[in-house]
């Protein structure tokens, strides 16, 4: 390795350290034995994990988040995959314009989306409901799925669907036997990332949550507003582990699906 290479590596290492430092602090705090957030902790224990297991509001919020994320994932795929298919393969007017239109929400700050949804949903009595939260999250996930899947469908190997057609496969058979199997890695990735996007979503959720329907991030924000104990650090560690599992699973599944389809 030459001097410049070593310098860059050092720099990259420094940046990573900076990014990961708070995580180290959080993990250390999660195992703290103290009553308050003190760093470094005076002793270590699992008491905050036990407290977490007994915290009804946070557990209820976790339930809400999982329900919303599951619904959002399912609906985003049901809407986004066919839409992407139409945009990538269809022949109709205004296709370019529609593609742009569907991607536009990705460019809008979620703060603005959240506010707009709040004004709109209040009329419809959808605020502080699970359907309202799911619809709110879908303004993020559906454009995301459309974007990823449009690329996935457009980059299928050349002529492969035409080959299936010449062999006697009707259009829906081509879709079922060739197009979708080859796009499967993309669908799996979209499902997992949609779930995480919804599970993580905080800004829109803050606008749309209420006492009877609050997602985990919202409940966490409320918790730290009033208390300063390491409970949230313990919760964070649980979430980090969960996210890592999902990411590794995507990596594995998509990798496997890719290997099978190439």
């Amino acid at each position, binding site marked *: 390795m030459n001097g410049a290479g070593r310098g860059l590596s050092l720099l990259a290492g420094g940046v990573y350290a900076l990014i990961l430092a708070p995580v180290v602090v959080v993990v250390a705090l999660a195992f703290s034995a103290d009553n308050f957030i003190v760093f470094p902790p005076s002793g270590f224990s699992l008491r905050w994990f036990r407290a977490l297991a007994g915290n009804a509001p946070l557990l209820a919020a976790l339930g809400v988040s999982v329900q919303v994320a599951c619904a959002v994932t399912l609906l985003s795929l049901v809407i986004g995959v066919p839409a992407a298919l139409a945009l990538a393969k269809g022949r109709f007017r205004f296709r370019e314009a529609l593609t742009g239109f569907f991607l536009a929400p990705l460019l809008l700050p979620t703060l603005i989306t959240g506010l707009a949804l709040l004004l709109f949903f209040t009329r419809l009595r959808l605020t502080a409901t699970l359907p309202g939260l799911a619809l709110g999250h879908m303004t993020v996930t559906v454009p995301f799925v459309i974007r990823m899947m449009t690329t996935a469908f457009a980059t299928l190997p050349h002529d492969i669907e*035409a080959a299936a057609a010449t062999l006697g496969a009707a259009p829906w058979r081509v879709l079922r036997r060739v197009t979708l199997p080859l796009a499967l890695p993309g669908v799996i990735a979209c499902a997992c990332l949609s779930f995480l996007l919804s599970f993580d979503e905080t800004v829109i959720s803050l606008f749309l949550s209420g006492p009877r329907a609050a997602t985990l991030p919202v409940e966490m924000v409320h918790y730290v507003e009033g208390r300063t104990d390491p409970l949230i650090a313990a919760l964070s560690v649980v979430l980090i582990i969960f996210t890592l599992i999902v990411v590794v699973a995507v990596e594995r599944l998509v990798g496997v699906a890719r290997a099978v389809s*190439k």
Partner: protein
Amino acid sequence: MTGYLELTGLHKRYGESIAVHDVSLAIGKGEAVALLGPSGCGKTTTLRMLAGLVDPDRGTIRVDGADITRLPAHRRNMGYVFQSYALFPHLSVARNIGFGLEERGVARGDITRRVGDALALVHLAGLERRRPRELSGGQQQRVALARALVVHPSVLLLDESLSNLDAKLRDAMRHEIRSIQKSLDITTLFVTHDQVEALTMCDRIAVMHRGRIAQIGTPEDIYERPAARFVAEFVGRANALAATRDGGGIRIWGAAQPMNDPGWPSFDILIRPQRMRLLPSAEPTGDAMRVEGRVLRRAFVGDRVEVLVEGPGGQLTVELPSGGTLPEEGTAIAVAWRPQDNLIFPPDAA
């Protein structure tokens, strides 16, 4: 002329440019026809229209008398071997080949048997369980061929099928495809930009140029009696010599020629390099065509030698069998050929 596969006035334009311009072609049952032409002349577009993958703007396609112009691709029963092979990467070799049979609802046992037969036909027995990516280019080509043939298509369409193979494999596959085509007696349209493929693999050749068919004929017709200057220059090589009129006679490179006057003010005469011979400058040639020049360069190309001769009107290449004695570079020399080997076209008939 009527044929088993008939295209009549097939036309396709993309925006301002015309990809296929009123192409008509009749192919007999069991006949192999090559669609030969330079890149971009509309060969693939023609083939895709036949297969139902591209909609023609006008014109009709008939197979065995039935008009299939508006039939969707999956109901045409045509075997198509794509230039990229387009094998299904997620399916095994056996499932790739069996795909068309599965779509036709053939019983499982019959599929297994017919896939086995098809694999044997292309000499790939034993590779059933492989994935396409685990095969060499030549093997993928064979799978694509077997996949197209196993469903007993009415017509076999091949698009530049050999162009991705190396030279040796290409030779072998050329003979193999031709013998399979003959043994199955399957009507075939074979697209290529390689004249050797066209000349050796097909009963007839249709030479295509800028979206039109320039000439249809047997390989011999095309080579010996090209109907247009483009055909003469695209199929085989040719020297083009500018001819001028002088009184009643024709002159090339300043020398008077013993040939009939076609009546045009000026024109080019095309001659195949291997139809020319070299002789000492002083030697008389009787009633042969003849020009004078000097040897510029000699190139040894294995079984033959190319001699580049420079004269007052430019340069020409003479091709001789190797092994004979050759004139030294720089010596004055005469080039002669028979008048019946002249290929003459009206001026501007490009």
